[in-house]
């Protein structure tokens, strides 16, 4: 078979049963792979009323038909589950090399269900699959467990996905890492994996990927690699990593200072990529077949954290563990906090989010040292944060409350709507380090509409408004208009978000890195279709390709609809729609801006063909996408969502 391995590996940890399920041509054509395969499993096998930590809940790891090939950046993996943080659909995506290795081992997807009696790890050695004892690994950081498994297996070249102590303790925003430092950060699947007593999955693959048309494949890959060479985003990302965005964020007022109280700070450059490169960068790293190499490896040379080193940080890793919690003077504190979230295995965005919420509750007098167990949660208190991150990961003291995520913590503390105001969440998930009053109104719209919980910069990644101005004519080619390349405008944004969400979903089905297709626009949709067809020997069209993304997006939206989540929850945190952006630096460009969600929402619904009252995908749209069974599921729920009883239930999570 060309491209795909053609099979799914299903592991039941309760019974120990391991099965290999063939993936039919029709199935692969409908979903492509990766996020598509995973979303289909979760929709069909994890019903709305199932607890995410139930042994019968699934967690899926998916790769795509071009995974492991020479196309740019084909090492990515999507991990999907019902999220313990939001209670709704959840997934995350990681780079590294594990995805390619899984493909070489002969699998397009792994589905894990059940719960082992004692901690275990999976060892996949091509077609040999074993469930092995991991009691000696339990409690270890991913970097420790990674080395121990490699010594056990006797091979330094295998690739391993692991959870840290946070996942073992079922922290609701625990995550996974592959190759120690490459994170699938969001939505809490690390806790689901930990609830199954699964420490990780080690893979060795000695196979290959069959290519239908090798010459056509090498032609397109070589052409794309030449396109990357002068690409401005590629150059910036290679030189400075995603921290290259810090100074831009500060200028345009989306740098999240103190839980988004402000959007800029005079000392922001302390943590900029340029500064990082001069002071603590040990080396750069790239993922499988990546021409960009945005990865960093940090070594702290001075101060109280001297000697610490770790893979990273990304922008979205450092900003929540730095300026969002008021830390900016000593960047080494930020790198140290980022290292802690890696070692304990927690989503840095959610960790910073819940700590900053707690700091704002403390600032506003909603909680005191009585609730915090004596911790003085002042902004920028690095000493307290150093204690608090391990406490969250191990569910100790006040950390046990925060381990539940911001909105559940607000409820546990009895803070009411006032407490929820400061959690900065939509559907229970907090915002990444991107203030929509500055980053862009398209991003803000996609924060409200994201299908893995709101506040998600990666559901659309509508960089046509962030980096679009670096590619003259690109906005016109796709949107018919250059005006949307300005961030702080509603012009063209509903269509932009519709287009980018579909495109991003298909990119996730292929399992290629979105930095090659968004941010950098070196690879466009026609290029992706070209290498997909060269690998598979099939005849996907651009329309079919985009339609698959639309199909996946609507399936995920329907998952939320089944949980009674729809139009009423299509919101962004109130801070952005009511508080004008204050001035933080004199060159800031967005002073006074508030985010105008409602101006764009109605138009966006029309593009998506969502019902105006419920926000559910229309029956017509679901049938158009071949999701008749989903239309049937939602039919009795439409009236229920509009009932007075449902309207009275204000839900922050599900």
């Amino acid at each position, binding site marked *: 078979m060309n491209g795909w391995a053609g099979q799914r590996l299903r592991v039941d940890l309760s019974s120990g049963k391991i099965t290999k399920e063939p993936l039919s041509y029709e199935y692969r054509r409908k979903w492509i792979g990766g996020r598509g395969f995973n979303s289909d499993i979760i929709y069909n096998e994890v019903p709305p009323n199932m607890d995410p930590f139930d042994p019968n809940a699934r967690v899926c790891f998916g790769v795509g038909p071009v995974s492991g090939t020479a196309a740019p950046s084909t090492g990515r993996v999507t991990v999907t589950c019902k999220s313990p943080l939001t209670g709704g659909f959840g997934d995350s995506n990681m780079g590294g090399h594990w995805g390619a290795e899984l493909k070489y081992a002969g699998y397009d997807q792994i589905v894990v269900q059940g719960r082992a009696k004692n901690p275990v790890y999976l060892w996949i050695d091509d077609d040999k699959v074993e469930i092995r004892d991991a009691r000696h690994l339990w409690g270890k950081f991913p970097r420790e467990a990674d080395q121990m498994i490699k010594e056990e297996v006797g091979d330094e070249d295998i690739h391993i996905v692991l959870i840290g102590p946070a996942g073992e303790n079922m922290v609701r925003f625990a995550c996974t890492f592959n190759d120690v430092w490459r994170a699938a950060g969001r939505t809490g699947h690390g806790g689901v994996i930990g609830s199954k007593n699964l420490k990780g999955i080690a893979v060795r693959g000695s196979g290959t990927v069959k290519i239908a048309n090798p010459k056509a494949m090498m032609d397109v890959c070589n052409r794309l690699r030449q396109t990357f060479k002068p690409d401005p985003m590629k150059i910036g990302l290679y030189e400075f990593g995603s921290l290259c965005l810090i100074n831009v964020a500060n200028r345009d007022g989306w740098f999240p200072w103190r839980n988004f109280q402000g959007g800029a700070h005079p000392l922001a450059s302390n943590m900029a990529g340029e500064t990082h490169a001069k002071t603590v960068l040990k080396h750069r790293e790239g993922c499988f077949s990546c021409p960009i190499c945005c990865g960093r490896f940090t070594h702290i040379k001075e101060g109280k954290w001297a000697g610490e080193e770790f893979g990273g940080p990304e922008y979205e890793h450092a900003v929540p563990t730095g300026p969002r919690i008021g830390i900016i003077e000593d960047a080494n504190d930020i790198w140290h906090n980022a290292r802690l979230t890696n070692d304990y295995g927690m989503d840095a965005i959610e960790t910073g989010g819940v700590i900053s919420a707690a700091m704002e509750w403390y600032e506003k007098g909603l909680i005191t040292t009585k609730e915090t167990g004596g911790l003085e949660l002042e902004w920028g208190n690095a000493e307290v944060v150093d204690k608090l991150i391990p406490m969250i990961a191990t569910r100790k003291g006040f950390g046990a409350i925060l381990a539940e995520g911001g909105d559940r913590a607000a409820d546990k503390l009895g803070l009411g709507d006032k407490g929820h105001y400061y959690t900065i969440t939509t559907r229970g998930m907090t915002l990444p380090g991107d203030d929509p009053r500055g980053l862009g109104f398209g991003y803000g719209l996609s924060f409200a509409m994201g299908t893995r919980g709101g506040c998600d910069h990666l559901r659309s990644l509508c960089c046509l408004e962030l980096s679009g101005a670096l590619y003259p004519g690109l906005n016109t080619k796709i949107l*018919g208009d250059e005006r949307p390349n300005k961030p702080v405008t*509603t012009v063209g944004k509903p269509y932009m978000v519709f287009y980018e969400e579909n495109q991003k979903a298909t990119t996730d089905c292929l399992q290629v890195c979105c930095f090659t297709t968004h941010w950098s626009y070196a690879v466009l949709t026609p290029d992706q279709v070209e290498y997909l067809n060269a690998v598979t020997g099939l005849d996907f069209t651009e329309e079919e390709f985009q*339609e698959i993304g639309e199909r996946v997006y609507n399936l995920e939206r329907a998952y939320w609809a089944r949980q009674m989540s729809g139009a009423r929850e299509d919101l962004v945190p109130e801070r952005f729609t009511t508080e004008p952006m204050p001035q933080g630096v004199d060159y800031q460009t967005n002073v006074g801006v508030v985010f105008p969600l409602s101006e764009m929402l109605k138009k966006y619904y029309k593009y998506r063909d969502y019902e105006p009252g419920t926000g559910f995908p229309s029956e017509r749209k679901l049938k158009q996408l071949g999701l008749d069974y989903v239309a049937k599921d939602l039919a009795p729920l439409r009236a229920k969502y509009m009932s007075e009883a449902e309207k009275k239930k204000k839900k922050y999570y599900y």
Partner: protein
Amino acid sequence: MSIMTKAQAKNFAEMDDFMLELCDFLKSKNVIDATTHRSILLKGFSRMVAYLQEKKVISAKEAKEAMEKGFTSLVYALAK
């Protein structure tokens, strides 16, 4: 080929987000069918321009200008 009035063109040119309205208009005038309407929304503006040129609704010169200047150029070409 003129398929809209200058007043209609001006109305489109002043829109903030024109794509869906323009596709609906072209469909109402039987310039595009439902399949092409969908194809344009999925693929983007370049698909719209390419189709209109292929069907000789606009000339090659007008298509080139539309890709350089954007949708305002296109709608005025449709109103000539």
